[in-house]
């Protein structure tokens, strides 16, 4: 017992050091670069970021932000709130005015009405309003599609269940151009779905270039994420509680509503939150499957950066980030109020292939839907890669082989892209998983302002990829001048660090909710018996959060492999190209070469996910 305090101190010191390393990495790879970009939103023209501290009175301006807030283009009807806070916005005013003119004609000419009513024209969403709207629709659809998937994955046993669970991360790595190719081939006018409908003499559907297809494509990316996160929580539902509820006379439905659902809600909302944030910042999918009429805020961010209008870009970036972080913060406040406890006593799975029952029929329906939405576009893309003007062809794969053997040093080689992607992915995991775990553990400690720290830890998801990319270019690739020397950071190690910083929030968000709801008594019991904090973490908590870690790991890997913006910037002039970069390079008059590379990406990542899950489960058992 006398040696214990020393070990405890060493342990705390270790945690502190690890915390500092993580904080340093976040500052160099994220906060500093992003700050250099966003600072422009508050700076008068001609002032540098340092002036914010040295000469704030002259340097700081709110005009940029206010200009965006008060612009009908960005904020629609709501812009009057910022332009002139005391007047009623647009249509609401006009409408009231018309009604009153008929009902109380004498009233409208009197003073308060003349002052307060604003003639902004029609009520419109504005870019921000529309972006929030489409993100909400995408979130709702992703949850609606994801939940039945989680139910099947968590409650049934069937051959290939684990493989399917592993493959839920696959859509995440698909570059937008590949999803677009797959979606056009599946849902387009000449697509597989319409061919099928025509064969059945049913009316065809035409949903390309609409809000519906954008929302559907977002669900393609995010519904599997919702399913995976929720299934992970479902697997740690304490079945003993369900059993006791049943033994007390509760029906299946009541037991689900009062025992299971409360334990799932945090996970469902985690999935919903991530979906909202990703869809809110969506850019490529919107422009490829919808068109510029459906532009999101991020489209204007990208456009501003392209024109090097940094003040406007920074202003948009600040508002985007504020909104994403506010939603995240609201969620975290909710999460911390949850008091469910969980343990590794999941209820037994039902075998899927047995006699007919209603829930098995439902599973069949869900499977059919999943085949259309998820398998359809992927298989269509595979077919596209082996189809030429004269039918079946392997020339696209021959092209990849030829590039592998004959490419010049300044050209992209497919195999190098594959190995780079895998190396960066594995390197990213080695950093992101411990980072995520550390922050998850720290965030479940009770201290004031914890949720603010928590929300900030989510910032890599909340900040636009364009802003991060620009910051990395300015802050790291161009470098910083100190003492007459220019310090620059680029190359593979920087790419790995950037990927880790970009993906560790996945680990945090998958682990923290489970960790937060762990049965505290278990840990305390272990520690009162002499186990150190680390020992308790390893023996008690880790096995319980394993499914969360695994889900977080898979998606962190997926994010690394699919990452494009930071990778191309940090690999500038180098050989650090990855599979998505290769796909981009192979886009030409024909889709074939790029889709063939897309299929390579699919196969490589699918195998990786299965391997990650199998290895992870090995850890879980051992």
């Amino acid at each position, binding site marked *: 017992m006398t040696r214990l305090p020393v070990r405890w101190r060493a342990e705390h010191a270790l945690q502190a050091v690890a915390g500092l390393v993580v904080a340093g990495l976040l500052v160099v790879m994220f906060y500093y670069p992003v700050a250099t970009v966003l600072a422009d939103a508050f700076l008068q023209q001609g002032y540098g970021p340092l002036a914010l501290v040295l000469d704030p009175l002259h340097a700081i301006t709110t005009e940029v932000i206010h200009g965006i807030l008060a612009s009908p*283009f960005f904020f629609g009807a709501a812009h009057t709130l910022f332009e002139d806070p005391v007047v009623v916005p647009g249509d609401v005013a006009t409408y009231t005015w018309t009604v009153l003119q008929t009902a109380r004609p004498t009233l409208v000419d009197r003073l308060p009405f003349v002052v307060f009513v604003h003639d902004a024209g029609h009520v*419109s*969403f504005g*870019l921000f309003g*529309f972006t929030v709207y489409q993100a909400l629709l995408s979130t709702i659809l992703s949850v609606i599609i994801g939940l039945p998937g989680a139910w099947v994955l968590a409650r049934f046993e069937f051959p290939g269940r684990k493989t399917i669970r592993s493959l839920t991360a696959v859509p995440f790595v698909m570059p937008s*151009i590949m999803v*677009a*190719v797959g979606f*056009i*081939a599946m849902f387009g*006018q*000449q697509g597989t779905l319409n061919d099928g409908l025509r064969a059945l003499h049913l009316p065809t559907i035409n949903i*390309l*270039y609409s809000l519906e297809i954008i929302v559907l494509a977002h669900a393609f990316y995010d519904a599997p994420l919702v399913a995976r996160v929720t299934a992970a929580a479902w697997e740690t539902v304490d079945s003993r509680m369900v059993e006791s509820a049943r033994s007390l006379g509760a029906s299946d439905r009541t037991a689900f509503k009062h025992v299971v659902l409360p334990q799932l809600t945090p996970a469902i909302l985690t999935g919903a939150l991530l979906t909202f944030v990703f869809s809110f910042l969506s850019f490529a999918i919107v*422009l*490829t499957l919808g*068109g*510029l*009429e459906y*532009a999101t805020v991020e489209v*204007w961010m*990208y*456009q501003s950066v*392209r*024109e*090097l209008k940094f003040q406007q870009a920074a202003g948009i970036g600040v508002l985007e980030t504020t909104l994403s972080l506010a939603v995240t913060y609201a969620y975290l406040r909710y999460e911390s109020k949850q008091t469910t406890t969980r343990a590794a006593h999941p209820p037994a799975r039902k075998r899927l292939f047995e006699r007919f029952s209603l829930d098995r029929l439902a599973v069949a329906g869900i499977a059919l839907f999943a085949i259309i939405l998820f398998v359809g576009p992927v298989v269509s893309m595979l077919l596209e890669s082996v189809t*030429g*003007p004269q039918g079946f062809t392997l020339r696209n794969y021959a092209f990849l082989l030829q590039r592998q053997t004959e490419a*010049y040093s*300044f*050209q992209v080689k497919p195999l190098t892209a594959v190995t780079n992607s895998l*190396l960066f992915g594995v390197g990213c995991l080695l950093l992101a998983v411990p980072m995520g775990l550390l922050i998850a553990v720290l965030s479940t400690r009770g201290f004031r302002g914890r949720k603010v720290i928590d929300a900030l830890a989510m910032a890599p998801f909340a900040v636009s990829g364009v802003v991060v990319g620009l910051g990395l*270019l300015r802050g790291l690739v*161009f*470098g910083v*001048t100190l003492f*007459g*020397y*220019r*310090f*620059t*950071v680029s*190359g*593979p*190690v*920087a790419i*790995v*660090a950037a990927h880790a910083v970009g993906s560790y929030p996945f680990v945090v968000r998958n682990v923290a909710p489970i960790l937060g709801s762990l049965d505290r008594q278990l840990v305390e019991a272990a520690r009162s018996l002499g186990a150190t904090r680390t020992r308790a973490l390893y023996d008690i908590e880790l096995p319980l959060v394993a499914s969360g870690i695994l889900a977080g790991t898979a998606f962190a890997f997926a994010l690394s492999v699919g990452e494009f913006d930071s990778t191309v*910037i940090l690999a*500038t002039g*180098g*050989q*650090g190209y990855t599979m998505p970069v290769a796909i981009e*390079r192979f*886009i*030409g*008059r*024909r*889709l074939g*070469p790029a889709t063939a590379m897309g299929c390579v990406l699919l196969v490589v990542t699918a195998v990786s996910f299965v391997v990650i899950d199998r290895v992870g489960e090995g850890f879980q058992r051992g």
Partner: protein
Amino acid sequence: MGVCMERRRFLKSAGLGASALLAGCSAEDVSETTTTTEGSTTTETTQGTTTGTTEGPQTLLVTTYQSFVDAPSTSPGAWLKETFESEYDATLEWFVPNNQLNYFLQRKQQGVTIDTDVYLGLTPENLVHADSTLSSGSLFESVDTSGFENISHLKENFRFDPQDRAIPFGASFISLVINQDMLDEQGVPAPETFEDLTKPEYKGSIICPNPQNSETGLEFLFWTIMQYGEDGYLDYWKRLQENDIRILKSWGSAYAAYSNGEAPIVVSYSTDQVFADQYGEPLSKHQIGFLNNQGYQYIEGMARFAGTDKPDLAADFMDFMLRADVQSEVAVRNVANPVVDNAELPADFEELTKEPEEPVGYGYEDLMGNVSGWLDAWGKQIAQQ
């Protein structure tokens, strides 16, 4: 981590000199031995330190766009490198940063050295963008072309820079590419005028790459401004919108949707049939449509970076690029038109690259001070929610 210390070119305190530079690079060495995945960190040395130590051929660093060196079909990059190196005592290195021109403009804005010698693939609007972005000085410098071997054969109408910083080296035409088979099925002829595109028979039939994001789309937008004027183009685009024109992310996504039969008409290039012929696709699916018998001239220029330490070699390269034999070879490999009148092209190539009766295009002065405003007003009209 790939940290590298690089001495600033304009650093005056030479006393720090070589030993400190060495210390910086040795620090890099240390990090390289500790991390095994070290790769692409490059150490640019200063002019002063290279002149004393350089032996053998000089290296010319040329920046260009991706498909010029690494297209899935054909690209002239490799041939140019080999031929140039075989004729000159120099090494040619390609450098392809992702953000192209903006990469260099941002370096200049941040006070970082450019370290590159020649820019290949500069359009008039690129040059306008560069000049209006930088408040002082230019990214490029004028080149005296009077000594160039083939300069007398350069077609004068291709020159677009009044200061002769950018010299044209390649051209093509923006046009419609039409899937006539699809139109035949609908019993509709190919559109011939801008007005045709607003007619009900072409509702939902046209795909255009987003001008904000694509040079092709941007020049198509310019073309409509030439037709309808600054005061009329937004109204014309309103009618196009009402006719369900699709404005998609990039040339790549627009052409992909067109190839998949989502629409019979796409805004692209008049060289399209060369590719169709290569892949054995029927030419009926790749008809070229010149609206109002015009084609918008897409001109690519080359320019020497201001402050390059190899001005003569850079000029030699530009001279080389205009030679008749190089012009025809680059044209065929880049699937574009030459800019000199004495370049010979294979007959079938010439047959497949269509030219309009009336080439049109804005010059530097037309565009200066206008592009950003035109694009902004247009974008806000299209994306109005």
